[in-house]
């Protein structure tokens, strides 16, 4: 497969880009923020997403979805990134779908159609501390009655306070097991926090939460692979969204360079800024290619996907960080004001960079996967 969008994908992009730009531009985020929206996203917008079939893009056709791949999901995520659109798309339609589709079984049968129909919002309860350490899960699931009893604390759970179901990673006797914990389960408390980018992420407490045996996603003790699928999909998706954030910030900044005058010149005429903008362009292009490669390898089910996913998350993190930093700096004083959008890009970038492993985590993974 060549590493560019084929005709179908290009068509998808041509329909998604104007849709998101019109329905959920940055002003949409501002409105939710300024009205202190308590959901974290617009349910009306999600309904519009549903009309276009987006929530079920990655859901297999057998479960009522479109059976598309990560390359296609990435197209949507890039536009979400470019417009800073608050949306449960990444956790629900990418991360949760990847896990459920990989696992199959009861929970897949129950939730995948509900995701595809736009009815279910799913949260991913993986992290436990302030940093992403999925190899050190201490939430426990102990056998109790017909099922399990879950105890632990989860953090950085996007949409955790409104999700219809949360995928919870827990330690079981022989490994890691993933559980589908429904919204109304007793003993679950979600304490939502407003983050720097105005999104809401919860600290989730699981205090003796009892679930049936069939709440297990996949098999008991065999959640490692499913968790890996969830992580690979979510990381790649977050990277695609960051490419959108970085590209949006860069485009806005390049436009500004062509408009703002200082010392009797357009500031874009100054070679110092030209070279930095050109360097940034190169970094963004590299990041974009890395993300597409990760999407391609995931879609192919390739062995090499895991390495490329970490490369993509790290590289997109670096490039988008550069884009928002250069963006604010090149905008000068007005870039520091809440009135201008560039600062909002910096905030969203920071949250995405941290989500599911930051640059440092993934560079370290690259080293480990290469045996050093």
């Amino acid at each position, binding site marked *: 497969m060549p590493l560019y969008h084929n005709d179908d994908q290009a068509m998808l992009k041509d329909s998604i880009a104007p849709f998101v730009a019109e329905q959920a531009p940055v002003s949409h985020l501002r409105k939710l923020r300024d009205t202190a929206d308590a959901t974290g996203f617009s349910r009306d917008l999600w309904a519009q997403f549903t009309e276009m079939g987006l929530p079920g893009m990655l859901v297999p056709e057998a479960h009522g979805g479109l059976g598309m791949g990560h390359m296609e999901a990435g197209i949507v995520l890039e536009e979400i990134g470019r417009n800073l659109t608050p949306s449960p798309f990444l956790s629900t339609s990418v991360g949760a779908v990847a896990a459920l589709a990989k696992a199959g079984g009861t929970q897949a049968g129950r939730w995948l159609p509900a995701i595809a129909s736009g009815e279910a919002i799913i949260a991913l309860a993986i992290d436990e501390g302030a940093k992403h350490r999925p190899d050190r899960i201490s939430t426990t699931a102990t056998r109790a009655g017909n099922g399990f009893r879950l105890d632990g604390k989860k*953090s950085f759970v996007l949409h955790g306070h409104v999700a219809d179901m949360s995928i919870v990673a827990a330690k079981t006797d022989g490994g890691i097991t993933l559980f589908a914990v429904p919204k109304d389960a007793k003993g679950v408390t979600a304490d939502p*926090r407003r983050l720097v*980018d105005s999104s809401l992420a919860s600290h989730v407490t699981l205090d003796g939460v009892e679930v049936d045996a069939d709440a297990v996603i996949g098999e008991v003790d065999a959640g490692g692979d499913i968790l890996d699928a969830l992580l690979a999909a979510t990381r790649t998706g977050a990277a695609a969204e960051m490419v959108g954030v970085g590209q949006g910030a860069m485009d806005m900044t390049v436009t500004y360079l062509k408009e703002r005058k200082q*010392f009797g010149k357009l500031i874009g005429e100054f070679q110092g800024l030209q070279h930095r903008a050109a360097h940034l362009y190169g970094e963004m292009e590299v990041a974009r290619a890395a993300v597409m490669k990760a999407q391609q390898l995931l879609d192919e089910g390739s062995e090499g996907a895991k390495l490329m996913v970490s490369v993509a998350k790290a590289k997109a993190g670096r490039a988008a960080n550069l884009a928002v930093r250069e963006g604010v700096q090149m905008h000068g004083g007005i870039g*520091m004001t809440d009135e201008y959008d560039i600062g909002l890009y910096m905030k969203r970038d920071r949250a995405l960079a941290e989500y599911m492993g*930051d640059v440092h985590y993934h560079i370290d993974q690259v080293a480990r996967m290469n045996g050093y």
Partner: protein
Amino acid sequence: MSELDAFRTEVREWLEANCPPEMREPVRDEDDICWGGRKWVFKNEAQKQWLEACVSKGYTVPDWPKAYGGAGLTPEQTKILKQEMKRIKARSPLDSFGIWMLGPALLQFGTEEQKVQYLNPIARGEIRWCQGYSEPGSGSDLVSLQTFGEDKGDHWVVNGSKIWTSYADKADWIFCLVRTDKANKYQGITFMLFDMESPGVTTKPILLISGNSPFCETFFDDVKVPKTQYVGEINRGWDVAKYLLGHEREMISGGGAGGDMVSIGGAFAKAFGKNAAGELDDPILRAEMAAFDTDVFAYRAMGERFMDMWKTGRAHPASSNMMKYVGTELNKRRHELVMSGGGSEALEWDSEETKGGARARGWLRTKANSIEGGTSEVMLNVIAKRILDLPGA
């Protein structure tokens, strides 16, 4: 040396007796800073006591002459006072643009009368000043400013607007660059002083990405300024401004110079835990923090060297630009690392545990470091031109 030793002993005893324990706690946030001024409300009795004690000794401006409210200390004595205050972690009794900026300008360019008139209230924290330099259309190209003072014989009538006036909504007076000759770009600007309560002055806070509003837009609508209220010469305000910009840079950049050698990696080691080799348990972040610490410790040495040379006239006049450039870029990098170190917790914007998103807001605030007081790009231009003598720079 024994005279200085005696002075040190004296200072130490005085501080022991006069600096309230509450004033030896680290500054937690903006609220712990004493800015003074007509509208000032002390946050607590200790803050008031500490300011008054210092005012009585001239210690708010220790190196200013006694006639202007200072203590008339020599540079060596001033250094000792600062060392001793740092030793007991005493807070600054008074922060003030009057002390940092207008004061040095008046000491350099003011008449004797102006010095007595303006410096004493600054030293006592009675008048709070703000600075009116930038304008919406100017920015880095400061000298293109448009705010105009029309000559009306014994006064000017000032019209225009300023942006990035720090705490203009809380200040009593403003020192302000005003064009008084439209035909002459550099030699057509006057450095004026006027009361913010003058009719025609209005301010509007600017909401920043950090969620705070330390700056304002300030509008002048037929503001009358007596023709006695200027510093230096009429139409030669740019000389004063340039002098002050150097001073501001010195302040912004020198800020770190006397600071502690606090290691960012050391500060985060506990949160992350350590591996078997005693290393902070996030190897790549550890490497970045260590590289940063190395740069910061080196920069601190430069801060010390810069201050030592500056005070004795050995520094290149433009070296404050270099200090400002390097220092502000480092500070931005520090806060990127602080955010990484804090992880998802540091992303929280208004939770109690994070003191209302202190880390996130602080991180965003630092992005202005390399813009305010001359952008990094302007600093680099100045270094290229004035230090490296590159052509056409």
